[in-house]
């Protein structure tokens, strides 16, 4: 998985590309851990180029959601493909996350 980070006035955007699975999800987890040490207002996870996500990826996302809530940061997930959206739906995460 490739993660491309951009920053604009306190808004951090991570454009993710590839698979978010057992093998790769730790890359995103590590990126997020280091990011939460910075002072940010909003986090955007761009899923445009994510075509596969397993529970390993979901766990990273839900942990990030818990973290942003505790830090008072907004988190949005954008450009989610239908196949990934159905995984969010099945697991009930659609209600917890802000998916745009």
């Amino acid at each position, binding site marked *: 998985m490739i993660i491309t980070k951009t920053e604009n006035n306190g808004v951090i955007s991570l454009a993710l590309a590839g698979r978010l*699975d*057992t*093998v790769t999800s730790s890359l995103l987890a590590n990126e997020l851990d280091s990011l939460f040490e910075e002072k940010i207002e909003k986090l955007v996870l761009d899923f445009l180029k994510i*075509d*596969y996500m*397993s*529970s*390993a990826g*979901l*766990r990273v996302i*839900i942990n990030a959601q818990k973290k942003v809530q505790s830090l008072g940061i907004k988190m949005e997930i954008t450009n989610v493909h239908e*196949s990934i959206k*159905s*995984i969010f739906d*099945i*697991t*009930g995460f659609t209600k917890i996350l802000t998916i745009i």
Partner: protein
Amino acid sequence: MIRAEHLSKNFGTLEVLKEINVEIHKGEVISIIGPSGTGKSTFLRCLNLLEIPSGGKIFIDGVDIMNKNVDIPKLRRKMGMVFQSFNLFSHLSVLDNLTFGPVKLLGINKADAKKKALELLKMVGLAEKAYSFTDELSGGQKQRVAIARCLSMDPEIILFDEPTSALDPTMVSEVLAVIRRLAKEGMTMAIVTHEMDFARDVSNRVFYMDEGLIYEEGTPQQIFQNPVKEKTKAFIQRIRSFMYEINSPDFDLYAMNGEIQHFCEKHVLTKKMTNDVILIVEELLTAHKAQTDIFDINLTLSYSEKHDTLLITFESAGPECNILEADGDDNLSAIIISGLTENVEYQRTGDKNKLNMYLRKN
């Protein structure tokens, strides 16, 4: 019509056919299936003496064709053969390919031979190609010409040696359609094929060849649904199933995914179905890993074309445990699996846990 007794064939010290005893009756359609290198084509070629058997006897309409006094060319005329590689005359037009044999060998006058050739070309859907050269045709068209050429000699039986193996997948059906039509018209045929659905649909009997023998024979239902012998069972199972062993927690996930994808593509599953299967398997492994360090896992995917269903079987050695009910603290894997599958069943058999589930259709 054809009877082989104790038929054997050696190539040097290699024993290809051991002891073939078989009878093919008029009007029967016989499919000959089995792994590569088990003598299927050699058996077929022995029947019309393209290969001379090392032992045994072959009778055609009661005549022993291995008797030195027999008029072999005359007997061969009773048997047409269609080859994998077409074997057409590339320097002749399609029409001339069909009239050459009847005129030269059967003594039919050119006008009658042409009339019949045109009828046969119409039958195989290639009347408009009569004056084309064979090199101008696609593989599927060439094979249909080869079948028409075979029919132009009025054979009593046609031997097909893997007639679709050299064809692009898009051209297989046009050739099989012609063979199906011949079967309906009552032509006696013996067909070496890897097209299992075709073999199941078109045949009266199926010969499963292995170890240089007709290892098992029966109706398509017997061979494909209820094979009795071990090797037949394994062969039939392998055609429709994908099996993968996982013996280490550090197994190569992507290599496995690649093989699952290949299996799904082979059975023309949609991209979504393929993705779902890969996800289900990953979740099964995640749930398994959350419960135990023992990695002795057999994964099987079985696709039924008839019912358009995909059965996923996840069998693992270790203490009794249904990993879907004892998932980790968030239960995510079990939730995803439950959302993508139906009819999930857990069984404990011996020292193994077995989960069966069907991919949910959307």
